[in-house]
């Protein structure tokens, strides 16, 4: 075992503030949808808007960070060990089999994670962001008599936005649970809080790096 600095400071800030915002947006959003009652409709709308702008700002920063640090490559899906990973979670881990893949600072995500997070970033996030912006600017005539968005029915926009919310919550539930499947149930959580994680020293660590490099 080796203590490795896996999650950088910005990465942790981004992860936890995004998590916070997503849950806050879910709360206020489902209040606007009148499924729960917490702040009252008026406040819920206001808070939802403020939180949505914060999230958008955060996303801009995180995209910049991913691009400039090259961390975006973490999400490039690899399919070779995907089925092995699925098999591990559904079967192998009960038998006490070892993880089929090894986590390193260079390769933080297992194949299943990579493809799921990519789905989050390419499907769920765009769905909720685009419909959210359409919702926010949906009106027939705005204060300055400019028609902004009215051709797409608000009904459709709202329903797609709600669908996006359900999908992200689905992701969140499974994501939170999966954090307990690390070396110990809390090791992944600890790592995301402190940045450091005890990782196995694997002989093919270097070779993994080289494969990564060759992909680059």
């Amino acid at each position: 075992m080796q203590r490795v600095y896996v999650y950088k400071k910005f990465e942790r800030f981004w992860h936890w503030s995004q998590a916070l915002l997503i849950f806050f947006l879910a709360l206020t959003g489902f209040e606007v949808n009148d499924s729960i009652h917490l702040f009252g409709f008026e406040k819920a709308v206001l808070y939802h808007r403020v939180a949505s702008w914060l999230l958008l700002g955060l996303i801009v920063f995180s995209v910049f960070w991913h691009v400039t640090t090259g961390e975006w490559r973490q999400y490039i899906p690899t399919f070779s060990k995907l089925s092995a990973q699925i098999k591990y979670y559904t079967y192998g881990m009960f038998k006490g089999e070892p993880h089929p893949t090894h986590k390193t600072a260079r390769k933080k995500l297992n194949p299943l994670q990579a493809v799921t997070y990519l789905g989050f970033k390419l499907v769920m996030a765009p769905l909720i962001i685009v419909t959210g912006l359409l919702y926010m600017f949906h009106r027939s005539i705005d204060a300055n008599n400019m028609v902004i968005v009215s051709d797409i029915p608000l009904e459709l926009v709202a329903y797609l936005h709600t669908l996006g919310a359900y999908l992200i919550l689905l992701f969140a539930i499974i994501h939170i649970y999966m954090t307990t499947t690390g070396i110990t149930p809390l090791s992944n959580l600890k790592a995301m809080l402190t940045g450091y994680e005890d990782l196995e020293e694997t002989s093919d660590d270097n070779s993994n790096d080289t494969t990564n490099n060759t992909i680059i």
Partner: protein
Amino acid sequence: MKQVILPIVFSTIFIILVIHLFYHPEIPNLGEMQLKQKYAVKHTSSVDHSKFEQLKNDFETPQEVTEACISCHNQRHTEVMASNHWNWERLSYVEGRGIERVGKQNVINNYCIGANTNEQSCAKCHIGFGMNSNQFDFNNYRNVDCMVCHDNSEEYIKGASAAGYPDRSVNLQKVAQSVGRPGNFNCGACHFYSGGGNNVKHGDLEDALMSCNRDVDVHMAANGMNMICVDCHTADKHQIKGKLYSVSSSHENRLTCDECHTSTPHFNRILDVHTASVACQTCHIPTYAKVNATKMSWHWSDAGRLKEGKPFHEVDSSGNETYLSIKGSFRWEKNVEPEYFWFNGHATHYILGDTVNGIPVKVNELLGSADDGESKIYPVKVHRGDQIYDPNTNMLIQPKLWAPNRGDSAYWKDFNWHDAAMAGMKGVGLPYSGEYDFIETLMFWPVNHMVATKDKALSCDECHVRENGRLASLPGFYLPGRDSNKGLSFFGQLLLIGALAAVFLHASVRFVVAIKKKEIVSEDITKNH
């Protein structure tokens, strides 16, 4: 260094955000202040009519007063005679009908039904003298009643069933010398008491507005801006701005709040975008009939019950008549929540001679829909009742209700529907089969007055709520908070519950496996021992 700067940056952002979210200092509303200043200065007359020689005569007839008026205001009568207050009709393009003359002369209402054959009594609210039949000469300027609108002595009243002539008690000379800008007394004489009593028809126009507080109406409050009717209902050449769709049908010369308040009066963008599809009145008039009750229903079919051969009336605990032998039964309500409709400023009416198409009959109908681009959501008083109609011709019947004496076919004297129907329909030149029945009717009155104070305006969740909201049954649009897709909600909840179940199952298996493993391990340990 980095350790210090980042926390400072983030905490600064956080503090600014919190301040921005929770601290909302009152922004001075300069536009509103300007309006208040404008209406703070009350109108004063520039002339004293009591000094004019022409008005010092002992007027024998009200027509002499009119002639005296015209001797100075020598073209004003032509303006008056071009107005609908005089003509009781207006040339309009009506959707589905074409160009039509529409007004009190040919439409009916859901209260006393119609003026035809009852002119002698109904002309109390005509700005003329001598309308005692439908043969009134609308070209005789001498019969224009200037005083009913311009009397500032508050002594001029029209006589009961006097064909529009003033009451005999009125001192014409005094009234003539006191004329000026119309006050609430003048407008209210007809518009407060129409339908046979205070607040019967409108619900939002009644004599409490003569002197009310800000809770009743922010504009007219005596302890507020103390505005009068004509401050808003201005007139150019005696054509008064504003429409009521009991008799009006087209979207022109309307009076809207945004003419003074603009369409973005809120200092809040989310509220301001509402003005594209929600009329100001919808949020700012949460209830009407705030002081005195208004009639919500009127069933003519109940009329005609007599006690010992004599008509009678019944009143409720508040003194409102709930039954009158001559009129039928009524339901009164106070502090009424309006009903809401999409309305684009156009309306159609049942015009005498139309055949009934559908029950209940809509005596008037507000046009509009969520997607026509023009409509806004308006608060409306819906008046329900029933009226006499002819089941063979399928026409509503204009009955003759009033006559000075018995035996003249008037229902209010003889209590005979058949005779009243015969005389009434003959009077308007329409057929009557000899058979009558009663049919349910509806009438729609947009609510425009009794504007509440800012803090009493509707809150968001009175409409944006899943069930029992104010707009619960308004169709044609997606309303956040009210509308949801059952399929989507079901699917979404299924996803979440499914995920939780899967997670629980997975965790349970892990748990069980872990315990078993421990047992094996401990067994191994004991074996080794």
